[in-house]
């Protein structure tokens, strides 16, 4: 099985059009090989030919490079490497999202995509003003975003953590944003979380006011009875007319806003340790993911909406291969849709590689 995968990966790397990372000679490379659990790290390459030759020769299962640039990327001790800066990386993976129960693969992909769009559009572009971004399909269940803006490269770990906190709403002070004694809802037009909360409350108001029985809906909130629901309803109406009114809404609603509505509805997602680690290794775009055989693929923002990894990240052809099934599985990949029982079956190469990489079958 591993030999098969290695052979296929070798074929891919012998012909692949690899996209060299920026300043690739300054980066550290790391590899994992089929059948081995350790990572080979601290590699560096002086030319793109050498990287290509290495990949074609060794056909690793996983290929990584450092988000950081170093004067001596080959040194094994971090403090000897001479850190020069690092791309700012965001990792959005289905594994870290709270997904609904029994979530289908399709549904999962669309949730991750929605979160990725929100992260890029609402946070990285609108709030942080980044301009030089690369969006990459991780080869599995998520996306990576590489930010190359010059000012981002020098940021230390602490600063990167602040960026993640901003995105996830961690450490937000609603007393500061809404006011402590006298409450006011920020305007939708304001910057940062002020505007986000303003918009969230407005959307909520629109939803409630457009409902046939908005008051009933409000009563579902903990601690809200008939009287208060009426008051909130009136308050939301007032707010729509004049967003500046102070104390338009009862305290209970503000509590609800603070506890649930404000952050939940607007926060972004991204895996904290990936972003704050300034020595992180990240998958090499255009390499293959050893657990799926998919291409780690760089995507343009225009293509992103229509991108479907099960169609568009496939590296292998459709030549039919005989495979021995190790455990039954169902598969829907490109044009191959099947419920596979034990035994020997014939499937296209791309599906065979995927199933093999998942440990579901082996060449017959």
């Amino acid at each position, binding site marked *: 099985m591993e030999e098969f995968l290695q052979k296929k990966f070798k074929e891919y790397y012998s012909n692949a059009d690899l996209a060299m990372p920026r300043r690739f000679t300054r980066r550290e490379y790391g590899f994992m090989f089929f059948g081995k659990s350790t990572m080979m790290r601290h590699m560096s390459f002086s030319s793109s030919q050498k990287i290509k030759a290495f990949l074609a020769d060794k056909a690793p299962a996983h290929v990584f490079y450092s988000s950081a640039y170093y004067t001596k990327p080959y040194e094994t001790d971090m403090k000897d490497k001479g850190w020069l800066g690092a791309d700012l990386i965001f990792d959005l993976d289905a594994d870290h999202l709270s997904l609904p129960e029994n979530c289908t693969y399709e549904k999962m992909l669309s949730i991750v995509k929605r979160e990725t769009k929100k992260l890029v559009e609402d946070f990285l572009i609108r709030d*942080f003003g980044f301009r030089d971004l690369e969006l990459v399909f991780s080869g599995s269940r998520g996306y990576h975003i590489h930010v190359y803006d010059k000012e981002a490269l020098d940021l230390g770990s602490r600063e990167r953590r602040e960026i993640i*906190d*901003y995105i996830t709403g961690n450490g*937000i*002070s609603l007393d500061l944003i809404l006011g402590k004694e006298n409450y006011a809802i920020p305007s939708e037009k304001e910057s*940062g979380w002020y505007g986000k909360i303003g918009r969230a409350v407005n959307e909520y108001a629109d939803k409630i006011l457009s409902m046939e029985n908005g008051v009933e809906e409000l009563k579902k909130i903990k601690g809200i009875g008939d009287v208060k629901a009426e008051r909130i309803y009136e308050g939301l109406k007032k707010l729509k007319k004049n967003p500046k009114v102070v104390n338009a809404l009862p305290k209970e609603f503000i509590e609800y806003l603070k506890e649930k509505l404000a952050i939940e509805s607007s926060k972004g997602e991204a895996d904290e340790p990936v972003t704050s680690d300034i020595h992180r290794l990240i998958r090499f775009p255009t390499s293959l993911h050893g657990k799926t055989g998919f291409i780690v693929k760089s995507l343009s923002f225009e293509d992103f909406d229509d991108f479907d990894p099960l169609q568009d990240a496939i590296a292998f052809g459709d030549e039919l291969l005989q495979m021995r099934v190790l455990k039954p599985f169902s598969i829907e990949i490109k044009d191959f849709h099947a419920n596979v029982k034990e035994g020997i079956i014939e499937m296209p190469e791309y599906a065979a590689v995927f199933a093999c990489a998942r440990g579901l079958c082996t060449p017959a």
Partner: protein
Amino acid sequence: MIGIGTKTGKKSTIARYPFLLEAFEMIKDESMEEILYSEAFRGSRALAVARVQSALKNDEKQIFIDERNCFEAVLSFYLAKAIVTHIKDNFLLKRHSIFEAKNAYYYLEKESEEVVDQVAKSLGIEREGDKIRFVTFLKYAPNSYGSWKLVNTRLSGGMVEIDRHIFLRIMQEAMRERIERIRFSVSDIDKAIDLSSIYAELSSRKIAQRKEYRIEFDSFPPCMKNIIAQIENNINVSHLGRFSLVAFLNGIGMKEEEIMKILMPTPDFDDRVARYQVEHITGKEYSAPSCDSMRTYSLCFEPDNLCAKIKHPMQYYEYKINHKDHGRVPSKEV
């Protein structure tokens, strides 16, 4: 290069921000020989020591700067920096840069927006209206709580909205960093300027910082042990000897009452006189003499290995208590 001088023609404005290149220009052509030894620069040298002392004592006494003394002010800043560079102590380095940055902050508070922006620019910070880049905000925010936390700011297009107060605090941090990074050394500065009061103050601050505080007689330098032994044996101790001991004990944080107890057995002991002496010394914060002076007064006594590596009896004690647990004597760096 900043334009404060050229625009307003006021050197005194520049002198309030001596860490800027333009201020350095004012003094860079002076002869070091003259600065160190000439009578004309005595005031600057004294001011330099005072600046370092104020940094250690955390007193926010501001130097009044006008057209007449601005040269002296700038020069004293660089001499102070040279003293700090010479002493090579991290605690002092930090204290000094915090102190000078705070000083500059107080001046900035009273400046016009134009001057504020010019100083900012020469620190590499640009303000656009009431906004700055979020990376600048992150880099120089003094902490990350409340309104200093990025998530609680108004951020859009990479710009954070700030008010004047926040901007000045950001600048203070940038100034602190700039000041800390300046390396200005002057050879033989310790010969030209008496640094003993600084050594004493520095050791005393570091001793006071220790979490577990108690007086450890074992760690006293031989000279002080000798003076105490003489007092205990009713041998008459010179006025200078007593002065040195009281200043030393005061420096390591001993209370007046405790100091009195040590002085008790002196034959000519007169409670009132002694109390007056002690209060006089402790109240004025006199510092004990340096080893050099101790030697001159014949108070240095059987110096040991550690003595060879220090310049002040306070340093002896400070090292001893800090290295006691490890049982090692510090290497050459002082």
